[in-house]
């Protein structure tokens, strides 16, 4: 279980990244979603002991991230956002080096690395220098690293950013095979929907919504999203796109007005922040 209490982070020039965040994460896959700059990476870097908070703390599986850093580090693995392998080393060598840093013997490290690469169907590329791998394979290598570590908690910061749809699906499949507790961040709503048991939606350094995807989307029950460029009827305008949340009974009416009708998804949590959908 991860218990985050009153977590603040203020960077230089008074930029506030986290504003007293409180959150309990106790599911197998918990996802922190949010737009760029929402504070997701800051939160993950604090939880994985790479960054000090300005105020507040978090307890991971009973260990305080500030007072018991060494113990926390012994039970977590953290794959940073945009992490790239050292090009000259092979996946086998990178994973082995990482496991040795985690305290494995060379023999154990080799065995676990081989198992993880095999498990994620990367055995063929085991000894190829990493700079010859595709973007998806490189990200899968980091997932294999997390798998091999046998950590209790794994932090994955935007594991599929910049990947093509097929590579993303490959990484998702790899993540699903991890048996540890996973905390991942993403700004892809479909990724959150695909992988998560629990979602926390972050915006401007705070959690604006939390729960299962079904719970979060409860406010949209019976609603559809109608969109039209330069439409005159709208709840919100994004650029020149008019967005209106309508009851399902009004779909035909809005289709006749030239609107596109879409299913509501997690993107709409951001779009409707501060709005009363009942009105």
């Amino acid at each position: 279980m991860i218990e985050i209490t009153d977590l603040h982070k203020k960077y230089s020039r008074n930029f506030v990244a986290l504003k007293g965040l409180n959150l309990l994460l106790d599911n197998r896959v918990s996802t922190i979603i949010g737009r760029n700059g929402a504070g997701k990476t800051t939160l993950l870097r604090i939880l994985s002991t790479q960054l000090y908070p300005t105020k507040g703390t978090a307890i991971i599986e009973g260990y305080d991230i500030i007072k018991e850093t060494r113990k926390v580090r012994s039970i977590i693995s953290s794959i940073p956002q945009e992490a790239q392998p050292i090009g000259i080393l092979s996946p086998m060598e990178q994973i082995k080096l990482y496991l040795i840093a985690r305290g494995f013997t060379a023999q154990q490290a080799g065995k676990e690395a081989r198992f993880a690469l095999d498990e994620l169907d990367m055995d063929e590329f085991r000894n190829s220098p990493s700079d010859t791998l595709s973007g998806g394979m490189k990200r899968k290598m980091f997932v294999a690293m997390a798998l091999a570590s046998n950590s209790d908690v794994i932090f994955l910061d935007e594991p599929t950013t910049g990947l093509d749809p097929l590579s993303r699906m490959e990484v998702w499949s790899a993540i699903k095979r991890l048996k540890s507790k996973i905390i991942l961040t993403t700004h892809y709503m479909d990724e959150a929907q695909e992988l998560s048991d629990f979602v926390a939606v972050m915006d401007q350094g705070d959690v604006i919504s939390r729960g299962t995807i079904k719970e979060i989307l409860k406010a949209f029950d019976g609603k559809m999203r109608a969109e039209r460029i330069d439409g005159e009827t709208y709840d919100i305008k994004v650029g020149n796109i008019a967005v209106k949340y309508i009851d399902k009974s009004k779909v035909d009416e809005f289709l006749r007005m030239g609107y596109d009708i879409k299913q509501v998804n997690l993107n709409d949590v951001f779009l409707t922040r501060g709005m009363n959908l009942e009105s």
Partner: protein
Amino acid sequence: MNPRFIGYFAWYYGFFVIKRGPSYLVASLSLPLTLLFMVGILSHGNLISFALIGGLVSIIASNCINGAADAAFFRLQIKIQDLFVATKITPGDYMMGLIMSYLVFSIPGIVLYAILGLYWHVFTIGSVLPIILILIAVTISISNIAFIIAGSMKHIRNVWGITAVLSIVMTVLPPVFYPYTFLPKIALYVLSASPVTPAAVLLQGYVGLEQLNYTTNLMVLILFAETVILTILGRQFIKWRE
């Protein structure tokens, strides 16, 4: 201290760079070998011993200072440093792993210069131990300058330019390819800001190219002090947990 990690890191990032990217090795040897040739020709062979001993320091120092680009790249671009923060290793292990990898990467150059030095009778049995100690001090001190530079960088874009300039300033300007006695005293002391200068002065003294005197004694102190101070500063600048 995690010697297993340090050993593997040094082997992987030292030896495998030589094996899989030999062009880096050729690049690291090209400047000192060119200067050796130039000094040999221009001095009619009289200063070849200085260029040999200087080349030895120059290879290690330039490999270590170029490590600033690696350290910055690992921290800012490919996030390898972040990856290692949340493990059992300490910043000291990580830094020592990188330092040792530069030393491993320098081995072919060291061997080449050792062979050339033996051929030209530059080295004596008695000078081997001081040479090793001086080269270790240069490796540690210059690597820590690299960590200070890497830790000060907020963006990766300038680091290659800075290290290229520093590599020249720190390994060619100091008296590595010419006798330190050619320099006015004041210039010698100014250039002593780079650990390469005291190292070069000491090497010239210990292999018998120059006399061991007050200046060399002073340079022992300067090199020792710089190694200690730079190691402490390097540890502060590495930005392990920000």
